[in-house]
């Protein structure tokens, strides 16, 4: 029941809220329609529910919602049936008739689609009992699965925009600011700057108009929490932004969102239109006399635009190059005016702080890092997905308990936090509580919340090379230490990975790092050496193995590994022979296969395709390949033939 006229007062909004209140006992199918689940077939599942519910005559009694991301991307598409909160995982369109018959018509469950405990084999029915969810504290992201991401009424029904009403009608801007300061909220985009101080600086700065801006240029590879919030619950970000505007005295807001997130752009633009229609944006919001409008600016693909001054330059329609910050951007930012730029997640926390108070927020987490943080837990981890935990939880608990540990019985090696400018944290520091200062002391950083887990198969030199490579490409080129320094670092790291490292390389790299950190204009250059420095600090032996022994201990650097086939194990099945792109495998039926080392370019296809019951392809590094077995011994005489 959407409105066609704006609400002119808080009372009218409350009246509408009552009218759209949801009956908690009414059956509802929530299907994740976030980008991850859509990629694994959620659209087909949604369509199947539509047809199936119609066919079984339940269309009028059961609601359907395409929701935002609940975080359990590993097991997508995720379907939750309310009010029983049965959580079905990895649902396909073919499972839908069975689900409808068993759990919507009847009151049973489809056992095989429930979460299964990997050690005991027990099935878990309810979403909140699955360890992945049970160990989180989901203040922000839990709303994602309770609302249709394109419905303002749904957001109102769960108490949306109550914080805005409270701020506009029961609090002065000074009071809102006081609560934000009391909450100790720190920026979720990377640097962890205190939000209250930033707001206060803008509020007191001379100059009109003032601006508030959402930084949704989430460029860190492997991080997608901001996208999940914008896609799944755009109104929570808008509500925070409007409150921010009211607090600092801005009437215009911008959302800078990367165009690589089409669904986020779509849902956000839709949310803005809806909010305008309801009188929650525009002139004289709810009759308060406060005017506020929001524009969406699509980013055209430049990592550096996540940096505050570069983002503001891009908003002005120019090339996103950072500016020197002799004066902070909250005093002199967009068009030279005071501008508060905060990350998506920071804005989404604001309504919570206004509703529950700064003190309530400050008691979550640790003294210096308050509240919760959403992490994007990816890489070599059992439960890939988004996890929201209170600050101060140990890395070990996040990885082992929430994330379910490393798959395939492999050994943990390191976790990379903070995106390309962050660092790698080794196993001995896993009990570190996650907080802004703790991670910085360990040589990494909080960053926007990417957490990439690496196991024994990941080469740390290669990881450093990967990030430096990324940052070299993304350097805007404005200042020399970053542009040229990174290029040289990339050259040397690539050389080391290729087994051409020399004595003195590490010292040169350290020197280049120091200059980039001291002399770069913006945070991109200043933090760019972090991936190298942190891996060197904790994994110096791997660098030395590459340089001195020409050996990659993780067997990952292509130029340093060789493959051969163990004649004892080879069953002459022809699989690798058929798939080798270089036609470098010699053999035939009943003839043991041998890799022609002249032709082999170490692509690893044979290693990948060799059936695990044989495991005949062997990967080595730093040692010569054993000579092939003589041709006359290659015939396999099978038992069935012999007898």
């Amino acid at each position, binding site marked *: 029941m959407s409105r066609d006229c704006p609400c002119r007062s808080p009372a009218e909004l409350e009246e509408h809220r009552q009218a759209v209140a949801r009956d908690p006992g009414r059956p509802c199918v929530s299907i994740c329609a976030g*980008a991850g689940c859509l990629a694994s077939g959620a659209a087909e599942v949604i369509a199947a529910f539509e047809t199936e519910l119609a066919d079984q005559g339940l269309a009028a009694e059961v609601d359907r919602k395409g929701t935002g991301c609940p975080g359990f991307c590993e097991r997508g598409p995720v379907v939750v049936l309310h009010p029983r909160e049965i959580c079905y995982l990895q649902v396909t369109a073919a499972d839908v008739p069975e689900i409808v018959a068993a759990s919507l018509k009847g009151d049973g469950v489809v056992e095989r689609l429930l979460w299964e405990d990997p050690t005991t084999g027990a099935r878990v029915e309810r979403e909140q009992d699955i360890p992945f969810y049970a160990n989180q504290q989901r203040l922000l992201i839990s709303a994602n699965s309770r609302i249709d991401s394109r419905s303002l009424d749904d957001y109102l029904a769960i108490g949306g925009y109550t914080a805005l009403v409270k701020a506009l009608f029961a609090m002065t801007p000074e009071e809102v600011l006081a609560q934000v300061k009391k909450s100790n909220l720190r920026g979720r985009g990377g640097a962890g700057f205190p939000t209250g101080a930033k707001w206060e600086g803008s509020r007191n700065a001379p100059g009109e108009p003032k601006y508030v801006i959402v930084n949704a240029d989430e460029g860190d590879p492997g991080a997608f929490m901001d996208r999940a919030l914008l896609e799944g619950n755009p109104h929570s970000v808008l509500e925070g932004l409007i409150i921010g505007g009211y607090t600092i005295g801005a009437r215009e807001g911008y959302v800078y969102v990367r165009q690589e997130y089409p669904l986020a752009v779509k849902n956000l633009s839709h949310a803005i239109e809806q909010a305008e229609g309801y009188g929650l944006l525009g002139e004289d919001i709810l009759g308060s006399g406060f005017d506020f409008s929001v524009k969406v600016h699509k980013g055209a693909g430049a990592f550096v635009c996540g940096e505050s001054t570069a983002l503001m330059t891009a908003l002005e329609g120019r090339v996103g190059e950072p500016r020197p910050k002799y004066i902070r951007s909250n005093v002199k930012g967009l068009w030279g005016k005071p501008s508060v730029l905060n990350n998506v997640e920071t804005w989404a926390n604001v309504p919570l702080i206004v509703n529950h108070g700064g003190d309530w927020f400050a008691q979550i987490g640790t003294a210096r890092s308050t509240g919760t943080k959403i992490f994007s837990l990816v890489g070599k981890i059992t439960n890939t997905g988004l996890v929201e935990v209170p600050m101060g939880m140990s890395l070990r608990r996040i990885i082992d308990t929430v994330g379910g540990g490393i798959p395939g019985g492999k050994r943990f090696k390191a976790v990379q936090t903070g995106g390309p400018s962050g660092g790698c944290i080794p196993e001995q520091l896993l009990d570190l509580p996650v907080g802004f200062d703790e991670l910085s002391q360990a040589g990494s950083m909080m960053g926007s919340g990417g957490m990439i887990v690496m196991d024994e198969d990941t080469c740390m030199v290669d990881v450093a090379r990967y990030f430096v490579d990324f940052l070299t490409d993304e350097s805007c080129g404005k200042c020399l230490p970053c542009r040229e320094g990174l290029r040289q670092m990339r050259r040397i790291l690539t050389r080391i990975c290729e087994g051409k490292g020399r004595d003195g390389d590490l010292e040169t790299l350290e020197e280049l790092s120091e200059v980039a950190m001291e002399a770069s204009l913006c945070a991109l250059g200043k933090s760019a050496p972090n991936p190298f420095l942190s891996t060197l600090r904790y994994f110096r032996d791997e660098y030395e193995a590459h340089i001195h022994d020409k050996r990659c201990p993780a067997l990952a650097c292509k130029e340093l590994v060789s493959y051969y086939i163990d004649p004892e194990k080879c069953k002459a099945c022809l699989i690798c022979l058929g798939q080798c792109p270089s036609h470098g495998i010699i053999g035939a039926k009943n003839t043991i296969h041998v890799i022609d080392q002249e032709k082999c370019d170490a692509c690893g296809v044979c290693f990948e395709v060799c059936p695990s019951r044989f495991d005949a392809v062997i990967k080595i590094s730093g040692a010569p390949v054993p000579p092939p077995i003589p041709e006359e011994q290659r015939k396999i005489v099978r038992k069935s033939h012999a007898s």
Partner: protein
Amino acid sequence: MDHDLVDQIIDRHHAEASALIQVLLEIQAEANWLCTESLKTVSERLEVPLARVLHVATFYKAFSLVPKGRHQVHVCMGTACHVRGAPRVLSAVQDATGIGPGETDLELKFSVETVNCLGCCALGPVIEVNGTTHGKVSTAATAKVLQGYE
């Protein structure tokens, strides 16, 4: 590209100089590339020097100054995909299409790009062809996916 369409896009943004990036993004979305004529029109109507239009058009990754192929292949090189073998997938794409990242083949069949994260890390390594995501691809599966395009 159709002249009227370019004008319409510019009109939608009231020919404001600050909307330069948004205008170029919309032209790119319509035509798949930015031709010289379009860039000149944008420069004249937005009253932005052509040099600055080109600066923007060459700085941001979303823009292309050459025509793109019929099928857009995006290989995710994000960290999660990287540690799960994205470089091998990229080689497979190069072998199957004969072109490297940033290139378009002469028949305008494929354009290959590397991207930094598609946000479906649970499915890594991931390639995306014409907006359809293919997850957990091996080198063999990659070749098979690409064979399906004409």
